[in-house]
């Protein structure tokens, strides 16, 4: 098919493709994209539904008490009844998550720039950064709380600590993936280091960054909850702990569901941001997916 399109596309006067046709193809791919986007989560939802149904049936059978394994319906209804409490505790968690993640983005990016600037810095820093990822969070979290108190600071620190690494690594790998020919070209044009960094290396790295961002964001909410678990005045972490101590398993699970929803929402947000930051990636993906049908 590729050979065919090449020949028909090229044999004419220098192979000018009709811009209107390109636009139509893009529009068709967009329409197809909406339907596909809506259909995509269906299989996952079906599996989740089956699992929840099995859980419901087992819980309803009455082998175990409600305080051990509450039915999903009970989790939902109790969660709904306590929605104000849940919301009041979700907000501080979200705030800690976003602040920590913001710090993580800045620190992660700056580290990547420093690492990229010199091979010596890279050799000195990378082993240390890897080491930070080997430290057990379960031991670190209470220490951070001891050092920085029960306020916002230890949460922000822990979220940043847990999430900066994938961001730094994705940037560093992205810089290294910059096209060598484009690098040669820019040098021949007289571009200096800084120009090449912002014209070629950084835009290349953005592709990798979004992959790292999605990995990092899935840890962020959990890290915030972990920090709250270790000691906090408010937040989903401390809410879960209190609910557990008073044997309200249903409310623990409701808080778990809220934290999962937060993570999923943030995860989805990365796609939205990517769409605006890298419009060409989506167009290219659509052209690749819709290319077969849309071409004729």
């Amino acid at each position, binding site marked *: 098919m590729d*050979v065919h399109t*090449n*020949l028909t*596309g*090229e*044999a004419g*006067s*220098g*192979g*000018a*493709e009709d*811009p209107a046709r*390109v636009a139509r193809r893009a529009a068709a791919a967009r329409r197809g994209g909406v339907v596909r986007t809506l259909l995509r989560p269906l299989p996952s939802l079906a599996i989740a539904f089956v699992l929840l149904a099995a859980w419901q049936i087992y819980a309803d059978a009455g082998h175990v008490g409600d305080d051990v394994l509450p039915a999903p319906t009970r989790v939902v209804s109790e969660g709904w009844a306590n929605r104000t409490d849940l919301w009041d505790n979700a907000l501080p968690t979200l705030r800690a998550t976003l602040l920590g993640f913001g710090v993580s983005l800045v620190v992660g990016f700056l580290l990547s720039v420093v690492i990229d600037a010199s091979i010596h810095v890279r050799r000195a820093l990378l082993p240390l950064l890897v080491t930070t990822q080997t430290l057990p969070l379960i031991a670190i979290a209470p220490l951070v709380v001891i050092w920085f108190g029960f306020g916002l600071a230890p949460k922000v620190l822990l979220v940043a600590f847990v999430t900066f690494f994938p961001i730094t690594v994705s940037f560093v790998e992205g810089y290294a993936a910059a*096209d060598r*020919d*484009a690098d*040669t*070209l*820019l*040098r*021949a*044009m*007289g*571009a200096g280091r800084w*120009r090449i960094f912002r*014209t*070629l290396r950084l*835009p290349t790295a*953005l592709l990798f960054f979004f992959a790292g961002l999605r990995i990092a964001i899935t840890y962020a909410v959990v890290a915030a909850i972990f920090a709250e678990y270790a000691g906090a005045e408010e937040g989903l972490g401390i809410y879960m702990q209190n609910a557990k101590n008073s044997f309200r398993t249903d409310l623990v699970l409701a808080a778990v569901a809220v934290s999962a929803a937060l993570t999923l929402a943030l995860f989805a947000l990365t796609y939205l941001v990517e769409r605006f930051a*890298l419009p*060409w990636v989506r*167009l*290219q993906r659509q*052209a690749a997916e819709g290319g077969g049908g849309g071409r004729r």
Partner: protein
Amino acid sequence: MSSSIEIRDLHVSFGGLEVVRDLSLSAAEGELVSILGPSGSGKSTTFGVLTGAVRATSGEVRVGGRPLGDRRDAFAFMPQKDALLPWRRIVDNLTLGLEVQGASKKAAREKVKPLIGQFGLDGFERAYPFQLSGGMRQRAALLRTVVQDRDVLLLDEPFGALDALTRADMQRWLEGMRRRFGWTILLITHDVREAVFLSDRIHVLSPRPATVVRTVEVDLPHPRTLDAIADPELARIEAELLAVLLNTTPESHAHAS
């Protein structure tokens, strides 16, 4: 803006490895001169010296009759792969060289604008590179090169990655365009027919260390058309070049002995 270029007694060594030896070649203003040679013969290294990517061990380069010295603005380079940046729209790719030179985005666009039609890119200014065909991408890469207004264009196998039909089409197109604009062009190629069809002069390089083993003047009138391909003189030159090339590759020596 076009000028003549002269390379005299160029030597390049990497460590102990001699890559270019005693290489001399020249192109007068408005000429297209091809450098023809086997792969790995140091053609791209020679371009590297001109663009400043590679340091020559010795030798002299003159542009417009004057020594090049530390000048970095004499050449505009076009690599084999188009190296269009996929996240920039075509118009922003075209202005890249001008932006690096320090032009404002607006001024750069103004300068590129009148050329877009002549390069067959009308209506594609806002498209991304992946939306263009191979031939169009190559024309965009060439436009990005020529708009820099440098003395000499360095084209490194510009049509090497294209299919045969598109390549033939692009060669005819380049023949017309360079006559119209009067560009001085150094063209690296290993396509004998392409070299003969496009060039005023062809330098054949030996395998490493590269040196010029034969210089052939192509004395056919411009603009050359499809008729030129049928010209017996062209066929004779092609045969001569092939004979030189095949006799200088190490494999043929091995077969002969």
